[in-house]
């Protein structure tokens, strides 16, 4: 076995040996030969980095699971406790976990982070509990706003991108529900809020690219909801608005790729409204759109210099047309539809057009998993066996269940083959699949809060064990060096 050295020791030895070689104390090539007796620190680092990642993932999932346990504890109303006790327990969980996390920050950063996550979850649980305590219910978006605002300082403090992302996502969820999907006067609140969001992205989030794009998506959605879907003359405003947006991107925003995509998206949607939805509404076949499609691909490929944004939009347009065609022919067999898309994603994962390889592979890879998840539920399969049965519950035998299990096993084998080739996505697929079945089975036999908490503790201890092993191994290395 090769001898192991720390990175600095390895570097030191290497420079010294090559120095000896250059002064003639060693023969030419001998330094390389000698260095070959040692384990390159690069391979060591690689393996320990993978371990660190798996620890992070485990603590993360563990934190989330315990958090879910707390959430579902709220949901299941522990009837023996008084309201005030429950309120206090949750508040205490928040405070205690934050403080524990704070004190562990230096000693055990991963555990500390997991504790912060649990605290943030307890906070969310408390928000929902207040809703329950006073029978407020209803406005789920307000709860998300409170959650998002409440964890934002923590995200800034930890400089944790995941928490930042979640916090901002919650606030945007609130804005989406409250203003963009609202009816009546509140819609005009968006006119005020969208500029504030742009200012927030620019000044506080240091002009973060993703936030900018999300803000533009909101702005576009606003235009869409209030202009595109209107029946009267306003519905034709896009003829003016869309060229203005293209000009804006060209002259002011330095031809941002994402904005370009959004602009084309609006343009295509306009086409869609006029040539697809309108005919479908009158039960006519959308032949104009179908004829336009190859033309659009042709324009993008030949005339627009193989434009990638255009290809992306064309791709989604084509995808949408497939959905409309299912609708037009009143094809309602969910099993076949799901299998159709699943096959499509798998094909895209492995076969791409050379000019658009990256995008096609991306879409295929990231879509086959959610589709497979849908296909792992027996309810997706029953239509394949009994066309006339209206509800899954009325199915006469367990064919659908068997089909879903066979599918899941085959898909898991595929995911495991990904894991074997060290594909992180494969690991994610396997974990979520295992979790999905764990939830399904454990919920049938156990109280769900206990199930979640046990799962979470299991994962956390696994993370702790990994961390300990890693440290022990590093300690051994240090001793070897001495």
């Amino acid at each position: 076995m090769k001898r192991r050295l720390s990175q600095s020791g390895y570097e030191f030895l290497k420079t010294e040996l090559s120095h000896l070689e250059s002064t003639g104390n060693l023969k030419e090539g001998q330094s390389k030969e000698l260095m070959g007796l040692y384990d390159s620190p690069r391979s060591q680092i690689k393996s320990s980095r993978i371990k660190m990642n798996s620890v992070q993932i485990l603590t993360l999932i563990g934190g989330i699971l315990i958090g879910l346990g707390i959430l579902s504890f709220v949901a299941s109303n522990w009837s023996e406790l008084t309201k005030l006790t429950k309120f206090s327990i949750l508040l205490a969980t928040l405070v205690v976990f934050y403080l524990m996390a704070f004190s562990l920050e230096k000693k055990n950063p991963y555990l500390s982070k997991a504790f912060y996550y649990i605290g943030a979850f307890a906070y969310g649980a408390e928000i929902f509990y207040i809703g329950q305590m006073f029978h407020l219910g209803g406005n789920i978006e307000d709860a998300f706003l409170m959650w998002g605002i409440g964890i934002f300082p923590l995200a800034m403090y930890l400089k944790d991108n995941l928490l930042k992302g979640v916090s901002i996502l919650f606030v945007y969820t609130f804005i989406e529900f409250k203003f963009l999907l609202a009816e009546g006067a509140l819609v005009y609140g968006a006119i005020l809020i969208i500029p504030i969001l742009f200012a927030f992205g620019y000044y506080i989030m240091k002009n973060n690219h993703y936030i900018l794009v999300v803000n533009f998506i909101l702005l576009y959605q606003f235009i869409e909801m209030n202009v595109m879907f209107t029946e009267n003359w306003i519905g034709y405003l896009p003829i003016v608005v869309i060229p203005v947006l293209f000009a804006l991107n060209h002259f002011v925003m330095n031809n941002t790729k994402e904005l370009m995509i959004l602009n084309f998206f609006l343009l295509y949607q306009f086409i869609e409204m006029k040539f697809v939805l309108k005919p479908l509404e009158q039960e006519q076949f959308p032949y104009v759109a179908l004829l336009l499609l190859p033309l659009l691909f042709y324009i993008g490929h030949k005339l627009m210099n193989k434009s990638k944004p255009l290809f992306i939009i064309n791709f989604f347009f084509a995808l949408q047309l497939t959905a409309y065609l299912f609708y037009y022919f009143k094809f309602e067999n969910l099993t076949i539809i799901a299998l159709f898309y699943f096959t499509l994603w798998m094909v895209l994962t492995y076969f791409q057009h050379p000019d658009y390889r990256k995008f096609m592979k991306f879409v295929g890879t990231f879509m086959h998993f959610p589709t497979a998840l849908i296909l792992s539920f027996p309810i997706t399969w029953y239509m394949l066996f009994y066309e006339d049965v209206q509800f899954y519950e009325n199915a006469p035998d367990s064919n659908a269940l068997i089909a879903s299990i066979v599918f899941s096993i085959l898909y898991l084998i595929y995911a495991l083959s990904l894991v074997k080739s060290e594909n992180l996505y494969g690991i994610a697929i396997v974990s979520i699949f295992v979790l999905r079945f764990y939830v399904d089975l454990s919920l049938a036999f156990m109280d769900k809060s206990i199930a979640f908490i046990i799962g979470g503790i299991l994962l956390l201890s696994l993370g702790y064990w990994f961390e300990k092993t890693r440290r022990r191994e590093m300690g051994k290395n240090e001793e070897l060096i001495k």
Partner: protein
Amino acid sequence: MKSLSNNKLFIISLTLPIILLLSMTVKPLITIYFGETVKLQTVPFDPRDLFYGDYVDLDFEAENIPINIVENSLRKTLDNNTSGSYSRDDLKVYVVLEQNNITGVHDVISVSAKKPKSGTYIKGISSPYIHENKLTVSIPIEKYYLAENTGTQLEEASSKGQLIATIKVYNGYSILRSVE
């Protein structure tokens, strides 16, 4: 944010959630302690909610209001909307209640767009149209949370038509207290 020291930012991270949580309880608590008690006839059923556990969805008799007790100026707006000439947005309304001395339950005595100067009233959202001579008003109390798996008992009780909700009302804001 840079001017803040790390410890201060941690303290903010900890106190902001607590302040937000406590502030959420203020309005309901004020209503419970200073509000007036109102009893309303209900029509419930029993779905489930991922975040909140078991609950009973509540519909109140007071949410279907005969058009003849709607206050005049509001009625005009509704008539215009129904004939299709004005906006279709939902309306904010005040449902004025009075206790029925025989049943003990509160009945709607009028609905108006302006805040009443006195009496017991609940803020609600009204549909912009009149439908079959009735106005549908949604009172922002929808759910009554229960201990898990007790929803069926209440459901059975409601099928006998005897469920009454006790509500605290303060300044138009309402908090559900119990369902019997």
